[in-house]
């Protein structure tokens, strides 16, 4: 556990140390400040505006902002869908992959445009280099930027007063990609290449084995090694909380994640922008106590759950008792544990931690097989997603959901002390609470209805791979992941069927737009209000008391909605482990 705790600590410290200045930087970028970076990249920004006829000071109300967002995402989805359907006839397809099916193309397009990156396919056996670069990498940037601009509008709604305007969608998108995502991706991609991630357009390599072997009846004397422009996609995949792997094995694949050092960087990258956004928020509202309160609430939720997950996975699997196997690293480090589906270079602790980070953020990347996690570690993954992606959360959308919970907590706190609830000078009234409720409650509905529909139909049950409660967990995980735009999976589930492609595709779309359009409406409503000065009766949305209230609200909503479903899945499985233990030799 010592190494596990060190890892957790090192990741969080790096995210905080890098996130604070990045948040400051982002606040300057969105304020339209002129400084060295904007002087350097400004000409490109202005060229883009003149090409697309965008006027920088053309402010939008929330409806126009929302329509712009939907139009832009719709264009992106259409383009990706077409690219996947025609990839067989397009260039940069050295492995000669044919078009993907309509159902899979729909599912993948919906998945990547919404930052979900649920993958019902294996990258290296399905996607051409062109689809990976011009299709998936582009959406990795644009879907991440879309998430960030949603929270930007919401923050402006809080900051501004008596205006209809929440910003210019085109300007926000352009600045996010150009000044934030692209420079960070370039840096990370270069480090990944140095460590061994490929970046090439050459075809797959055929290697001549020095020790040919037989498999079944065939003699295997060569190995085909899949390559591609991996590093450029991998960098934004982690930084943008996308999580869609270039290869089927995602970050477990040695080309996506060559060393334990890149694994550490990938973990930091997942929470870097979500952390920076919280710091940026504090700056933009001019109250840094807000940042501290939210970061602390996130950490209080994150650290114990992540530690529990690592601890559960470091325990040996009772199923394998009595077979005479050793914990392979026990003499050197406290690794060992449940190494099924784990890569040796990362070890169990760093795999469980990666899982927690990938589900607490909306990344959904995986450096090990989550389906083979011990039941309680799988439970932690599910919990992080079911808390509504608030603990760090997706880039932008995570903080947006967190702010929805904050407003909810302010409302409850206001009721308790019998005052009109207000947040940072804005009165919280019935419209605001309706929008917040809509945003928060759509996700549990999608997860629970989706899961029960899948369990009720043969086409849904047929997808499970493992027997018993674990099979149910696979289905629950699929709908939890897609409705929360996470994208990770219990990979045993056969997800590339028409049933799952359509069902999860719809979950993805509703989970994204039904959750976040109400928050844009909330932004518009808040911007319209006047700012009230704080007085003695104001419930300050900071400090330990409020933090406790906030954590309580998040946990209550999450726990009450999902506890019964979790009881049928991972909790039942853990109890069956106790049964195995009792009967093992």
């Amino acid at each position, binding site marked *: 556990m010592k190494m596990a705790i060190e890892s957790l600590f090192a990741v969080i410290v790096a995210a905080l140390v890098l996130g604070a200045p990045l948040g400051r930087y982002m606040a300057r970028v969105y304020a339209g400040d002129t400084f060295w970076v904007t002087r350097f990249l400004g000409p490109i920004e202005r060229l883009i505006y003149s090409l*697309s*006829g965008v006027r920088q000071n053309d402010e939008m109300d929330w409806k*126009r902002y929302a329509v712009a967002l939907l139009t*832009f995402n719709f264009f992106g989805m259409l383009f990706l869908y077409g690219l996947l359907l025609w990839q067989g006839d397009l260039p940069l397809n050295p492995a000669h992959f044919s078009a993907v099916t309509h159902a899979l193309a729909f599912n993948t397009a919906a998945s990547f445009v919404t930052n979900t990156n649920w993958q019902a396919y294996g990258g290296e*056996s399905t996607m051409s280099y062109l689809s990976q*670069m011009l299709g998936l*990498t*582009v959406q990795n*940037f644009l879907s991440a930027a879309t998430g960030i601009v949603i929270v930007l509008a919401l923050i402006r709604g809080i900051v501004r007063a008596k205006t209809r305007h929440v910003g210019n969608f*085109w300007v926000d998108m352009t600045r996010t*990609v*150009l000044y934030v995502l*692209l420079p960070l991706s370039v840096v990370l991609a270069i480090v990944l*290449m140095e460590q061994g991630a*490929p970046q090439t*357009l*050459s075809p*797959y*390599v*055929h290697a*001549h084995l*020095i*020790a040919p072997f037989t*498999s079944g009846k065939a003699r295997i004397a060569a*190995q*085909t090694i899949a390559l591609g422009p991996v*590093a450029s996609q991998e960098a*934004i995949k982690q930084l943008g909380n996308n999580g869609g792997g270039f290869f*089927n*094995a995602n970050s*477990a*694949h*040695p080309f996506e994640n060559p060393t*334990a*050092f890149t694994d550490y960087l990938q973990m930091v990258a997942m929470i870097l922008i979500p952390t920076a956004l919280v710091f940026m928020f504090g700056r933009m509202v001019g109250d840094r106590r807000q940042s501290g309160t939210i970061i602390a609430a996130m950490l209080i939720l994150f650290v114990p759950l992540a530690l529990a997950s690592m601890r559960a996975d470091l325990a040996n699997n009772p*199923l*394998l008792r009595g*077979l005479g*196997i*050793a914990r392979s690293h026990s003499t050197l*480090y406290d690794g*060992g544990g449940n190494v*099924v*589906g*784990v*890569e*040796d*270079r*990362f070890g169990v602790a760093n*795999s469980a931690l990666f899982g927690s980070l990938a589900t607490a953020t909306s990344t959904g990347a995986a450096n*090990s*097989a989550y*389906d*083979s996690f*011990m039941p309680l570690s799988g439970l932690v993954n599910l919990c992080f997603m079911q808390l509504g992606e608030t603990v760090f959360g997706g880039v932008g959308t995570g903080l947006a959901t967190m702010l929805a919970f904050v407003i909810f907590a302010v409302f409850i706190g206001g009721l308790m002390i019998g005052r009109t609830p207000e947040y940072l000078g804005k009165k919280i009234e019935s419209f605001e609470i309706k929008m917040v409720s809509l945003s928060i409650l759509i996700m549990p509905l999608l997860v629970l209805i989706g899961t029960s529909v899948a369990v009720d139909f043969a086409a849904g049950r047929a997808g499970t791979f*493992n027997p018993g409660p674990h099979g149910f967990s696979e289905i629950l995980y699929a709908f939890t992941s897609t409705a929360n735009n996470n994208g990770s999976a*219990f*990979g045993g589930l056969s997800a590339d069927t028409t049933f799952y492609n359509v069902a999860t595709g719809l979950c993805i779309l509703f989970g994204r737009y039904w959750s976040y359009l109400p928050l844009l409406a909330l932004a518009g409503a808040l911007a319209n209000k006047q700012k009230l000065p704080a007085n003695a009766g104001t419930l300050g949305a900071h400090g330990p008391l409020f933090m406790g209230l906030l954590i309580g609200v998040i946990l209550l909503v999450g726990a009450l909605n999902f506890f019964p479903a979790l009881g049928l899945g991972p909790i039942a*499985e853990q109890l069956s*482990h106790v049964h195995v233990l009792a009967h093992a030799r």
Partner: protein
Amino acid sequence: MMVRDMRAAGMLFVAMAAITGVIYPLAMLGVGDIAFPHQVHGSLVRYRGRVVGSVLIGQRFRGPRWFWGRPSATAPMPYNAAASTASNLGPTNPVLRAHVQARIEALKAANPRAHGPVPEDLVTSSGSGLDPDISIAAARYQVPRVAEATGFARGRLERWIARATVSPAAGFMGEPVVNVLKLNLAIARARLAQRARGG
């Protein structure tokens, strides 16, 4: 207003797709080609003039003269580097126990002189099916067999193991691991040299 926004949506998408989907990956390609030519083309290893694999991608080794890697769940053959996958067997799935049990029997039959418990990573499949490494314990477990089959002294094999070992950066990043292809190439090269001297 709407026409203006439609144009903006279309043109901005084209511009963004060009920047993030063409210029950015190609620029990285250029940087990689100049700065890290070995890595960006897959960290390929040559032996006797031919590409024999990638140092980052595991291979299946069987037979008494080689160090074995971890089991691989890829199809249709193990270590298919064009279709990575894990077994995805759940922690309570009886099939997992059956697989592990069968692997232990095969491993014990192949290593009659090995003693002590079987290292767990040698009987469980990895996350990618392409894990290039094994634990130090898993390498040491196989030393008696390889020494006997190849005639190399155990001390020499231990030195090769040490040379193929990567230790965790900063102490907490990952686990110490032995690269199986590097280790086996050391054996292959030594045998080649031996034969050259002998003949």
